[in-house]
């Protein structure tokens, strides 16, 4: 599908422009470094959501759980391990990735047998429950959240560090997923999306396939959680780590806006969403939530297929 929407050559053009922006952007626009870092975080959100929502047909509203686990894993390790900043951060990211994958395996085994709306609602509950548990658990600071250790470097260096780390994470995620979608595993995900009973009846091992797909999403979300928590410097259980009403919903919206199940859709959706969101914040102070809601309605009404889906449809129409 990705190949149908974009010829091979322009794939590389887009990738080159993005790489240039990722590498040079924070240097040229140092005041926007934190904004750019959040942009890459949004790209990771959309790419990981698309693995299930777009490619496999499972609309998860609970992916935020893996992000939150990543946040807390890093915070706890950095607080308790007694390591210098970067060693603690590295260990915290590894722990976040491992715990998130384990959580995906457990939740996946329990929930990926549920289909359609029931899965969506079940995962929504998962996200809310995780926030409530974190908010009531003293070991992780309960309702008052956790503060992360201070970044040791010079002023301004910290923004660049997280900007590049999140860029690297988003790039790795994109390249790995792009390769995965080119394999039989990618076709198997699409088969599950189109007709899971058929896929079963053709002998595919659908349950392990679904769990591995969710684990891949969880892996990148777990790492992104640790990085984001350190960048923000503080985690609140409901407003940062398990922020289902913001991050959790944005994941879905960005992917739908760009185009579910397409190669560039999630990236494009994250860019457009993040930029418009920031502009609303700057220029419509007080009304930004209303404008955001309006944007969401416009997305769903006018781009139900997403921008890439709309482009592919238009192209197919002009070709025939």
């Amino acid at each position, binding site marked *: *599908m990705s190949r149908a929407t974009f010829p091979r050559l322009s794939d590389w053009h887009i990738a080159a422009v993005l790489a240039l922006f990722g590498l040079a952007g924070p240097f040229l626009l140092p005041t926007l470094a934190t904004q750019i870092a959040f942009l890459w975080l949004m790209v990771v959100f959309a790419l990981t959501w698309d693995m299930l929502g777009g490619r496999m047909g499972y609309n998860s509203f609970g992916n935020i759980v893996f992000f939150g686990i990543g946040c807390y894993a890093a915070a706890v390790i950095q607080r308790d391990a007694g390591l210098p900043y970067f060693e603690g951060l590295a260990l915290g990211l590894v722990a976040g990735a491992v715990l998130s994958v384990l959580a995906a395996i457990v939740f996946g085994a329990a929930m990926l047998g549920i289909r359609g709306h029931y899965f969506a609602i079940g995962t929504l509950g998962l996200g809310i429950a995780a926030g409530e548990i974190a908010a009531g658990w003293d070991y992780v600071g309960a309702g008052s959240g956790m503060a992360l250790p201070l970044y040791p470097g010079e002023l301004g260096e910290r923004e660049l560090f997280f900007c590049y780390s999140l860029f690297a994470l988003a790039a790795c995620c994109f390249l790995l997923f792009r390769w*995965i979608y*080119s*394999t*039989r*595993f990618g*076709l*198997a995900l*699409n*088969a599950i*999306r*189109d*007709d899971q*009973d*058929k*896929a*079963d*009846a*053709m*002998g*595919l*091992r*659908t349950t*392990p*396939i679904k769990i*591995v797909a969710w684990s891949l999403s969880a892996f990148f979300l777990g790492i992104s959680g640790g990085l984001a928590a350190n960048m923000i410097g503080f985690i609140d259980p409901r407003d940062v780590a398990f922020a289902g009403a913001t991050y959790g919903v944005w994941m879905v919206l960005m992917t739908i806006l760009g185009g579910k*199940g397409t190669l560039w859709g999630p990236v494009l959706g994250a860019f457009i969403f993040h930029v418009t969101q920031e502009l609303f914040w700057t220029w419509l102070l007080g009304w930004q939530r209303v404008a955001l809601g309006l944007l969401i309605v416009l997305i769903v009404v006018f781009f139900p297929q997403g921008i890439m889906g709309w482009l592919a449809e238009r192209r197919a129409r002009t070709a025939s």
Partner: protein
Amino acid sequence: MSALLEVKNVTKRFGGVVANRDVSLTVRQGEIAGLIGPNGSGKTTLFGSITGAHAVDEGDIFFEGGSIAHLRPAPIARLGLLRTWQQTRIYGEMTCAENMAISAREAHGHVFSLLRPVPAATRRKGDDLLAFVGLHEKKDDKAGSLSFGQQKLLEFAMALMNEPKLLLLDEPTAGINPTLINGLIDRLRRANTELGVTLLVIEHNMRVIMNLAHRITCLAHGEVLAEGTPNEVRDDRRVLDAYLGVA
């Protein structure tokens, strides 16, 4: 000829409705077996029982001598027993070539063995089978954009791609353009003789099934009414009565 599939005294109830009562049926290695019966006689239910869509209430089912009555659809498919559906099931948003690629036998493998591109040999085989059913020009089209009849042909090609030992076909000619039915019969026969696939076919078109099948079983009200060669079944008074009502 040895028995490939043996259905022994299978009873299947849905609530108070007995869909199959004490049904026994044998499909021999290498043959084309037919399954006929009026609407609601339990043919599709029997297919569901054989391929693991639902558990049977009584009786047992053996494939190559081993019991499969307790297995789920995927493990049964991996043994080499596949089915197609009356309403056709294909992967609508994927291209025909992709439908073929993911239907290959290698896709049965462990999840991590799937993390490889589709081998060139598999692509070629998919193309060949699409050509076999006459869909080669459609290979880059979305499967969901095909006509109903073409989707049936695609589903048949996907099943062959999976290299089954036994293929259960649920009304393969229903919805197919009548001018294409002879071609389809020819392909079913070639799948049987050239590819060595044993077939069990549900069919309402009497001309088709009398031509195609070596042996026919007739169900009525969920029970086996008659079995034998096409001629024997056609001349059986009870079969006529079941279809037309007793005079």
